[in-house]
């Protein structure tokens, strides 16, 4: 029944008549568009213009619109083009299409120098906005914390414990495994290079100081930012998307108190514990390698370790942990609450949460290094 669509010119002279035949549907759209574009040029000087569609076998929105487009462009002059031979089935479709107002599409994707400068400006202003947002959240969390101190019963204990399980207890295996391996690697590299100077035993000093002061807490903080920071952002972000946070607010709950504070508390408690476990695992791994690879037996290792490190090294490391946890938590919650309605936005903010979290953790570590150096610890 259906054939390829055709558009033929049937009348000559002053009148222009076009006869459309075949299947005018979406699957023939490229052919149809070309035919219509060719036919649009035929208008010149005709007294009357007819488009005969009585032979069209099948018509859908695409076909109907193309006929309408042809009619409109042929009408440009004083003569109005007419559509003839419309069957009852399709007349309502053509009527529907005729109601469409053709508005030119504005292409907004052009790149201009001012546009680029504007973007740079917005990005710079965005940095200030980020810092302000973090300080804002810190203030809100501290205020909520103070309210909880005054009314201890308003602390969401169940929620805090739940998050503590997620962030701390469930993170133990992976944290211990990775810090153990890092300890092994540090010891192996140390022994390999120190051996040339006959200074194998100093690997214990290096391992002890490095792990307790820096690596233990920094590595754990980075892993927690990737593991728990991203989870916080995704949780809060999808709650924001589904208007759950608005719902909380309308019920008279403060989202900071209900959602953010338990998460922050859990993280601040979890990171020192994880950092301690991580440091122990790294020392154990290092000791194991020193024994099996470097021939430093455990007794000598422990003896040397006792001489090499003092409680200061341990304190320097562990004091940093809660501060880093707070930074990670605040960044994650700010990003989570900044999520807009789309899935893409959720992805962007989760990425930003991890990237910014790790960045701020390293910056904080630098600040602490300067601080401890100046107080002589």
């Amino acid at each position, binding site marked *: 029944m259906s054939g390829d669509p055709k558009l033929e010119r049937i009348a000559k002279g002053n009148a222009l008549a076009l006869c459309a035949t075949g299947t005018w549907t*979406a699957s023939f759209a490229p052919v149809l568009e070309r035919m219509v574009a060719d036919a649009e040029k035929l208008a010149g000087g005709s007294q009357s213009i007819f488009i005969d569609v009585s032979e069209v076998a099948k018509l*859908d*929105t*695409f076909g109907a*619109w193309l006929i309408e487009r042809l009619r409109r462009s042929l009408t440009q002059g004083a003569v109005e083009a007419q559509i003839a031979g419309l069957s009852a089935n399709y007349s309502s479709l053509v009527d*529907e299409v005729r109601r469409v107002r053709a508005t030119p599409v504005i292409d907004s994707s052009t790149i201009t120098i001012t546009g680029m400068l504007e973007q740079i400006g917005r990005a710079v202003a965005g940095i200030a906005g980020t810092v302000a947002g973090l300080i804002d959240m810190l203030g809100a969390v501290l205020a909520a914390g103070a309210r909880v101190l005054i009314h201890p019963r308003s602390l969401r204990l169940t929620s805090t414990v739940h998050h503590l399980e997620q962030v701390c207890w469930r993170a133990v295996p992976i944290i211990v495994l990775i810090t153990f391996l890092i300890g092994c690697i540090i010891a192996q590299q140390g022994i390999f290079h120190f051996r040339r100077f006959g200074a194998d035993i100093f690997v214990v000093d290096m391992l002890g100081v490095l792990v307790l002061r820096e690596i233990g807490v920094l590595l754990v903080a980075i892993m927690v930012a990737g593991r728990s920071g991203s989870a916080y952002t995704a949780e809060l972000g999808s709650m924001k998307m589904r208007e759950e946070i608005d719902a909380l607010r309308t019920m008279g709950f403060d989202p900071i108190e209900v959602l953010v504070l338990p998460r922050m508390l859990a993280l601040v408690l979890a990171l020192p514990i994880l950092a301690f476990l991580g440091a122990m695992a790294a020392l154990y791994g290092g000791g194991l390698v020193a024994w099996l690879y470097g021939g430093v037996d455990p007794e000598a290792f422990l003896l040397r370790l006792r001489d090499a490190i003092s409680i200061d090294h341990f304190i320097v490391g562990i004091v940093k942990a809660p501060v880093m946890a707070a930074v990670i938590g605040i960044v994650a919650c700010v990003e989570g609450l900044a999520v807009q*309605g*789309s*899935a893409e936005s959720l992805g962007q903010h989760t990425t930003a949460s991890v990237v910014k979290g790790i960045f701020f953790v390293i910056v904080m570590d630098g600040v602490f290094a300067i601080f401890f150096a100046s107080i002589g610890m």
Partner: protein
Amino acid sequence: MAGEIQNPIIRVRDITVQFGATRVLDGLDLDVKRGEILGFVGPSGAGKSVLTRTIIGLVPKVAGSIEVFGVDLDSSNTSQRRNVERRWGVLFQQGALFSSLTVRQNIQFPMREYLRVSQRLMDEITLTKLTMVGLKPEVADRFPSELSGGMIKRVALARALSLDPDLVFLDEPTSGLDPIGAGDFDELVRTLQRTLGLTVFMVTHDLDSLYTACDRIAVLGNGKIIAAGSIADMQASQHPWLRQYFHGKRARAVMG
């Protein structure tokens, strides 16, 4: 072609769907005729959405056969199946618009996949579809999160219609709309069915929709179709749930 006109557009035979130990659909038969608007009702949790999702192929069935456009969806190969999918459109309950694409991109998404059409024609067709579902052209560059609930349903319908399907599935299209908006939507479905020659499979709870939009009604209960027919048949039925549904307080209010 002649055969295709007489055969039902959807032919469901002996469908059984089970989630764990609960049997949701139990040997269900259903025909949807070409060109009709079938309203599908039943108590909440009876499995209306499950049946829709089973026909579309989102829920696996334990037994039975489904034919859409005369193609058995179990024994069809990938290209046959794609061909069928290209000829139906689905309006999900929550709209299911792609949240990171604008309205325009949402409507053009199926066109880009299935058709080789110039950008100009796609933009013009998008505009046509938006006009058809009663939205202004300005909406085209907004994101789904910037639309109201009613607008989301309309855009989702425009997307379901973007390839000019022969069959559309509407899952509770008027839920969450105000009565005037819902009335407009029923009107719209009717108009589109007339202009585009659509077959409409509509899951609904809305009595007004049943009265104004539907040609035929099928009722689901206990995993089976307990009744199918015109609105008059439904009112005459002695089935207890149907009596309650069509003669309850709200039904009387609708009938005036």
